[in-house]
């Protein structure tokens, strides 16, 4: 079983972002970076599948700047076999271009399964996986919360609003992974040390033409500050009035 997992380096999201002077991207100073959360689930799912089968290879692929190699190393430290870095100066916004670069790399690689996180937590498109599947002409399951492989066939579960669906598909296939599949393992130091010696191949990303760019980026407006109406029972009538007239929740 040969599995590819496409991952992305993203900034830690629990911060107040600032917009860069260019006005089209965030200011990256002081940001901490890590593997996108859903990609972590995908790597874990791939590792568990090969561990269960007792054989196989997991390859991680990323499109990104040099610093993205840290993210690849993290996947290697979790137990992935080797990594491929498709190098760009900056990750473009154009999903199609990224998918093209990935498809070029994955084409003819002999992969039984290609996994993605269901979306990156920074740009939240969820599109690169399905586009890559399209380019490779493979079946695609988006946002699987459960994934099993047996006898050359896959079954996946998708959570819907108030329901779930079970899908069956032939291999090879592309699946994007939702949380809930398996909690990503914490790399041991042993794994981190081993990762330093694992192969990491660097190639230029074949992006092709970029047809989409960010024109402007804006922060959400500040929330109006809370108001203190008074204390105790005396404040209740005013509170009720405002909840009815201003907040319109009653």
């Amino acid at each position: 079983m040969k599995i590819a997992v496409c991952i992305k380096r993203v900034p830690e999201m629990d911060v107040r972002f600032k917009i860069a002077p260019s006005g089209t991207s965030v200011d990256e100073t002081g940001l901490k970076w890590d593997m996108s959360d859903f990609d972590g689930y995908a790597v874990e799912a791939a590792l568990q599948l090969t561990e269960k089968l007792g054989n196989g290879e997991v390859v991680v692929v990323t499109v990104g700047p040099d610093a993205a190699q840290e993210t690849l190393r993290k996947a290697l430290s979790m137990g992935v076999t080797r990594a491929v870095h498709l190098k760009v100066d900056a990750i473009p916004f154009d999903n199609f271009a990224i998918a093209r670069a990935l498809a070029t790399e994955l084409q003819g690689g002999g992969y039984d399964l290609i996994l993605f996180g269901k979306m990156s937590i920074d740009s939240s498109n969820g599109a690169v996986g399905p586009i890559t599947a399209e380019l490779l002409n493979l079946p695609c399951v988006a946002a699987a919360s459960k994934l099993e492989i047996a006898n050359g066939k896959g079954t996946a579960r998708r959570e819907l609003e108030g329901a779930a669906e079970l899908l069956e598909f032939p291999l090879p296939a592309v699946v994007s992974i939702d949380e809930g599949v398996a909690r990503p393992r914490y790399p041991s130091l042993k794994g981190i040390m081993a990762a330093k010696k694992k192969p990491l191949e660097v190639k230029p990303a074949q992006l092709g033409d970029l047809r989409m760019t960010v024109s402007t980026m804006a922060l959400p407006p500040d929330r109006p500050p809370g108001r203190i109406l008074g204390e105790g029972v005396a404040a209740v009538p005013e509170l009720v009035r405002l909840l009815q007239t201003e907040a319109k929740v009653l």
Partner: protein
Amino acid sequence: MTQNVLFLLVLVAALGFFSYNAQRLVRYLTTGHDEHRTDHPWTRLRNVVVIGIGQSKILREPFAGILHASVFWGFVILTLGSIEILARGVFPAFGFDRMLPTPVHGLFLLSQELFAGLVLAAVVVLLYRRLVIKPRRLQGDKVHSGDAVFILSMIAALMVTLFLSATFDRVVEARHAAAFQPISSVLALVFGGVSPGTARSIATASTWSHALLLLAFLNYLPYSKHLHVITSLPNTFFSNTSGPGQVGVMRPMDLEAEGVETFGASDVKDLSWKNLLDGYSCTECGRCTAACPANITGKPLSPRKIVVNVRQRTMEIAPLLKGDRAEAAHAVLAGGEGDDAGGGTVGERVGHRLLDTYITEDELWACTSCRACVQECPVSIDQLDVINELRRNLVLTESRFPEEIQPAFEAMERNGAPWKFQPADRGRWADGLGVTTMAEFAERNERPDVLFWVGCMASFDDRAKKIAVAFARILNAAGIRFAILAQEESCNGDPARRMGNEYLYQMLARQAIETLDRYHVTTIVTTCPHCFHQIGNEYPQLGGHYEVIHHSTYIERLLQQELVPLRTENGKQLVVAYHDSCYLGRYNDVYDAPRETLKRALPVVTVAEPPRNRSRGLCCGAGGGRMWMEERVGKRINVERTEELLGTGADALAVACPFCMTMISDGAKALGSDVPVYDIAEVVAGQLER
């Protein structure tokens, strides 16, 4: 003549067999890795004198302590007599009476009589205690009680034979003044009717029995928990609590070492020879376990079991590793404690290891790293060192730990705090207080007198932020030029280190050292005992050298110098119970400063002490990373501790640690008590002039 030759043969055989066992046990120690334990020789010697000869730790429990100390001191004195007896067995002409002036020899005789009497009396009481009273701490699923009774009986027999031989010697001929042999001279009167011939035979038989018993005792030791008779003094000398600033400091670890594939310890071969010597030295007294907060509240952890099982595992595997086929084949020294203790065929033993076979993951994660066990151990064993090394293996090599702590690890790495707080908000607690940051000082080309290292709790936790505010107000009122690092501060790494994640710890610590050195920081004051211990005592391992002062000491100094403008009216007559933080107290010996601070700030305050206080204080339950783990088994440690504190009838509880603050406040809440919990800084700040 034939008798002397015979005795010589027995003596040589006995000493030979003892030497064989001694070299065997020393060789087994080399199963562990090498380690230097001879630094600070004078401190080590002082420990031998105070803890070993002086029995200071044994005497922490007065009743059993005085009994044991009597036996110990008695043995030391009686050894002189034993030398004479053994030498005379070979050279009948030998005798101290020929070498010493009569009065001095008389005193020697007197000392032998009196101490033999003392030992005999103590042994009888100890036997009574073992067999009739049966104190709880001497119970355990596989504690070698039979062994203890056997040894005690042997000691009693040694003393009895000593008296018999002296008595019947006197019946034959009273060679020494009765005043020097008060006990045997009385006994000699009792047995005065025995004929000289019979008396001579009894005296000879008693001397022989005494000598043979002594040699048997010596040779039984290597097979018994009473090996401590031989190893405890060396063990105290080599204990790692000897060096200044070394108390409670975790072992340094080289993560970059070439070719290393496993980290921490999973078996005795990964421990140091000193850990194995600890195993030999354990007397199974159970003082450690009786003081362990995890054990007291029903968790599956017993520090005694940890040590006993280190010994058991050493005896199981070392003979195999060292090629002692014969020793490997028959039963090992002493059984391990617990159902998970090993044993079995040679093949099975090779498949065992210390972790899992003898010590389970659950035990290791139950430890709060409070050091109560280390503090209590009369023979200076470091149980916690083993726990820490096993935890390191679990995390670094095997990535096995309670799942609740993974978010803490991840947050420390990404957010620089063990919770998902925004690093940019770190300095927000100080908004409006007019606190200057290090960066602002640097911009003006100035340096503050001290850096206030706030720590994650006091930076982000709503309750603990009030401690930071109170302390900043005190500093301001006293006119101290201080700075904070605000968003440039991040977790010091202590929680990661205590949870076994040395890799993450070193990453955070190096980053912190880099920041501190960039600003040429020399003096740091902090409200958190964990930051205090870590930065002051453990950063030197990574090249960070700072003078770190805990706020209790710092405020006490300010009060002493009358730099803090306090209100003069006395306020209410309050009784405050102070809770000792482990990392302040047992780790750093700061016991008086917080109490003094309370008294100086509120002259009318009475500081109440729960039964367990100062170096015996019970942990709040947060240390060792327990703050981030669920407490699923047994009673909650914080509730147990809060009950003790409330039991003093205090009007308020005082702490000097933000983690204790959380635990004790939660404890009070759980007990439905509305007794308030304050940090000592809050008490002082409440008395500031407005």
